[in-house]
């Protein structure tokens, strides 16, 4: 039977929301791992019953959980994220050198083809890979061996590698984003990396052509067009048409181009979604109105989507990993808020309804389309 499974990570546990293809009635299960911060829960594109979850706590550190049955049951796998022996430091908030220290896994990106291969983006920024279903993790240390790494420094949320984009044409090509270092791309499966930030301009960086130091919040790609990438930066919504070789601004007509998530319609590569947020110092929607903005033209022209979303007294945020789309014929769009609501649209954003209203603060939303 066709349906969807929405994987929700929150500050206090994980939830699985399921529905049939109509996406009108929902079954809500959870919390799993109650009391733990669930930064990300993600399913394997190659095996939808294989899920991975990042479970962490300020007290007891990092765990990775794996499910073989779509989230009905879980078992812990490996949690040793030991950095490879790469010398050097990154910059601390005050500009002093600071050694790399593992804090948590922000993002898990399962391989497009192998359920046992999964990538992990971590804080302090590094990329790890497991090829045994999460039992063991090896750092792809070429990223930190890039000559710029001593100049990377944390954003307000920490120095995290939060976005991993896998190229469906070429398994050797990956694009990642780090706050606050920017975008990096590899074409040799992670051995070597280069910054991919040309065209980004960030207030507060004295060098207008700075190779690194940009606070990229999220990237999105449509699988049919891997060379086109969309970016929500700290400020600015950007687009690349050459696989991150260069970027140009597409958010100039938004009410504010600050925000966190960005995503692309499952069937329309030029339909893009963002959630404008007031500013870098006021992380709430403008005017208390929660509005998703949609461009059907690959940027520049944007329309507010408001039907079913609160249009007064709404002061929640939508975090970078908390938006996703399904691939049913009528594309579904989903996002979660720091107020604990998970909203769904079964008509590509034209109208919205909450699936659930009172979860803990939502950190991540992923969707699996089940056929």
């Amino acid at each position, binding site marked *: 039977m066709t349906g969807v499974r929405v994987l929700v990570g929150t500050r206090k546990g994980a939830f699985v929301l399921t529905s049939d293809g109509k996406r009108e009635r929902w079954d809500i299960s959870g919390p799993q791992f109650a*009391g*733990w911060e669930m930064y990300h829960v993600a399913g394997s594109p190659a095996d939808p019953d294989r899920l991975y979850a990042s479970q962490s*706590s*300020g*007290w*007891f*550190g*990092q*765990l990775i959980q794996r499910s073989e049955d779509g989230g009905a049951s879980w078992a*812990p796998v490996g*949690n*040793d*994220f*030991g*950095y490879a022996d790469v010398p050097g430091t990154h910059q601390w908030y005050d500009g002093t050198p600071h050694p790399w220290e*593992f804090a948590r896994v922000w993002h898990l990106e399962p391989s497009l083809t192998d359920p046992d291969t999964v990538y992990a983006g971590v804080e302090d920024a590094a990329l790890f890979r497991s090829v045994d279903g999460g039992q063991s993790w090896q750092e792809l240390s070429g990223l930190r061996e890039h000559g710029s790494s001593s100049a990377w420094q944390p954003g307000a949320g920490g120095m995290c590698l939060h976005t991993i984009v896998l190229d469906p044409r070429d398994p050797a090509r990956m694009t990642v984003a780090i706050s606050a270092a920017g975008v990096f791309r590899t074409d040799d499966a992670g051995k070597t990396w280069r910054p991919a930030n040309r065209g980004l301009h960030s207030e507060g960086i004295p060098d207008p052509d700075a190779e690194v130091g940009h606070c990229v919040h999220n990237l999105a790609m449509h699988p049919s067009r891997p060379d086109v990438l969309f970016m929500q930066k700290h400020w600015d919504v950007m687009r690349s048409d050459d696989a991150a070789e260069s970027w140009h601004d597409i958010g100039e007509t938004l009410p504010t181009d600050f925000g966190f998530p960005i995503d692309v319609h499952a069937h329309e590569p030029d339909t893009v979604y963002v959630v404008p947020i007031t500013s870098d110092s006021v992380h709430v929607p403008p005017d208390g109105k929660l509005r998703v903005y949609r461009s059907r033209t690959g940027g520049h022209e944007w329309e507010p989507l408001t039907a079913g979303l609160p249009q007064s007294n709404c002061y929640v945020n939508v975090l970078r990993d908390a938006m996703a789309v399904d691939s049913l014929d009528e594309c579904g769009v989903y996002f979660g808020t720091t107020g604990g609501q998970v909203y769904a649209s079964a008509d590509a954003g034209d109208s919205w309804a909450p699936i659930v209203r009172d979860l803990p603060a939502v950190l991540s939303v992923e969707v699996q389309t089940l056929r």
Partner: protein
Amino acid sequence: MSTAVVRVKLPAHLRKLAHVDGEVELAVDGQVTQRLVLDALEARYPVLRGTIRDHATDRRRAFVRFFACEEDLSHEAPDAPLPGAVATGAEPFLIVGAMAGG
């Protein structure tokens, strides 16, 4: 070499991870130290590796505390002997999540 049976009390989150109720009893060979108790605990329950001590440094995680016999032993050297009452099993070794909000 003598073998002691040490009682260890885990915080709720770690009991759930390890699938245990109540206290854990661990056999520890030789002098009973914090390090040997934790080694035995992690050997019995590998899921706890990294949750009490950092994987890389083997040091106590910042918000974990060790108590026994109404004393805070968190800052004792890992190889220092634990109190005799812990070694004899009269008193438990308490692993505690620090009160730190959240």
